[in-house]
């Protein structure tokens, strides 16, 4: 289990846990990120904000937020969940 900030371009991960306050959890789940969601990293941003793909949607995410999303590497062959 690693924070999303450590994931590199093109990798696909599964969200395990959202470790933040109410506002944080609510914001992310409303936009479609919650435990079980598969994310693909479009741009890891290195030191800046990241871009991730949730299905067909692209979401820009500040590093502070990404830090609080714990993920696990999913098999790179599996398809991104819709």
């Amino acid at each position, binding site marked *: 289990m690693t924070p999303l900030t450590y994931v590199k371009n093109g990798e696909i991960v599964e969200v395990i846990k959202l470790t933040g306050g109410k506002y944080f959890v609510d*914001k992310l789940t409303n*936009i479609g990120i919650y435990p079980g969601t598969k994310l693909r990293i*479009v741009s890891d941003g290195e030191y800046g904000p990241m871009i991730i793909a949730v299905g067909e949607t*692209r979401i*820009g995410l500040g590093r*502070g937020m990404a830090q609080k999303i714990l993920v696990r590497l999913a098999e790179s062959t599996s398809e991104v969940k819709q």
Partner: protein
Amino acid sequence: MKEAIEKTKIVHIALAGNPNTGKSTIFNALTGAHQHVGNWPGVTVEKKVGDFHYKNKEFEITDLPGTYGLTAYSIDERIARDFLIESKPDVTVIVMDSTNLERNLYLAISVLELGRKIVLDLNMNDIAEHKGIKIDTEKIGKILNCPVVKTDAFHKIGLEELKAAILKATTFSSSQKELEFFVDYSEDVEIEISKIEKMLKSESIYPKRFLATRLLEGDPEIVHYLRQTSREFVVEEAMHVGRHLEKNFGYDMETWMIERRYNFIRGLLKESVKREKRSIKLNTSDKIDRVLTNKFLGIPIFLAVMWATFEITFSVGGWFANYIDAFFGWFAEVVTAGMDVIQAPMWLISFLTNGLIAGVGTVLVFLPNIMILFLAIAILEDSGYMARAAFVMDKLMHAIGLHGKSFIPMIIGFGCNVPAIMSTRTLSSEKDRILTILINPFMSCSARLPIYILFTSIFFKSNQGTIVFSLYFLGIAVAILSAKILKPIFFKHETAPLIMELPPYRLPTVKTSLIHTWERASAFLKKAGTVIVAGVVLVWFLASFPISTEYASQQTLIGHLGMFLAPIFKPAGFGFWQAAVALFFGVIAKETVVGTMGTLFGGESKLATILPQYFAPLSAYSFMIMSLLYIPCIARV
């Protein structure tokens, strides 16, 4: 909902949906020209209402703000929720992005839990089909007990079916008090839900189940509502139960409830959606993103784009401006000649030519430039680049204590600060919102553009775009500086984290870009027609009296006013009375600055020859800076 139907025969519809689902396209396609725009009570959030007829029935449709859910965390979501609860629309149409049903259905579930009748509108169906997503609408409709239709609003496909579905939805389960729909929150929670439901006793506003579930999640608005209706004990009980359940589950109630809802949605989609397996590869949009948001290239690209925008604005706009200028010169001559023929009094001729035509004409000369700037901004917005700009600027914005999203209102501020301030509502933190509003006036709005264009076209002919770009840049710098200063004084608070949807890049269509351009340009024209005319008339009046004096000379009322104010501007290098007067009237609206000058010096065409007598390039630049930074216009205040 029952009273609403009996009260009138009009069917009330609410239009809800996530942002970027084509909701307003649906709204426009349904209502056509039959719509009016206002504000939601108490907030500056635009409220659009329209109507249409179908099968001899009248439908009134209210466009709710684009939201992801119905929580109490942002203004938009609160508005949507309050409307659904208080106004009880007969049917709520939920516009969904067919390529992203999972997230879009979350909102639909929330609305269903509120006990509203819904129609699911699977919009952007063409894109979904193109991507190999096959959706069984009948199955979804059966499970959620609501009509489901596919539309492609952009190409006007499926609209008749949508209307039919709305009509059909009005007949759905109207006899039942609450709709028979629920997500299973697991056995343990369901027991508590029904206990809380019983404790609530009579309840007329919300469905009891909705109250019970939201209460367990700790929704602050619901807690507040129950306390107000003296049911504190229910809140206490729910909190107690919630803590107990949390201990059992190992994580918090809110996450649990949300997960159950998503679980339900996933199950629903498994049964109703088929996806062709495709290999995952970067699509074009992603490739573009890697370049445009690159940490080295991102900001330079953004600056280059903005600079190009201004270059185009001036080179192309200037070409048109000459023709408009010539037209007004000719028009003033024609009017003078015409008035001479009917022997109109001198003061009337002076009023029309020196006052109205010279003043308004001076401003309208800049319409092409403004239109082109608006068009450029519309194209940047519609293509999806604007969202990236905010994203790219996030780091920089963070440095001044704001986040990337604050950047969008600042860019819109280039158009006009008024809509820019309205757009700050997308910021979820109240403090970010206030700070963004405070620094917004430093953004060079379109009203200041005529001043820049006028002066640069006279004094900085060879590098007009660059000079204006520098002014815009200066405005941004001052805004950043003031944010830096204001932030620690007023708000000791960390900034809200950045999370924003990046719409896919697409080629903006001519039609939508023109519509967006026109929306803003017409606002400018409206102002030109009202505030500016009033200002110009006032200036003319002051410049003509006492009656025996020469028009706009130093002996007139305005001359005295200017003489009085001029010393203030002396240090800035333009201590003569005409400039002082122009800036003075600019307080009403920046547009009048140029209008005033036009009036005082006898028309736009003469400014080019007269102004160099008064200004050196340096003092001209300082005049422009002064227009940029001094008091904002009244409309904004």
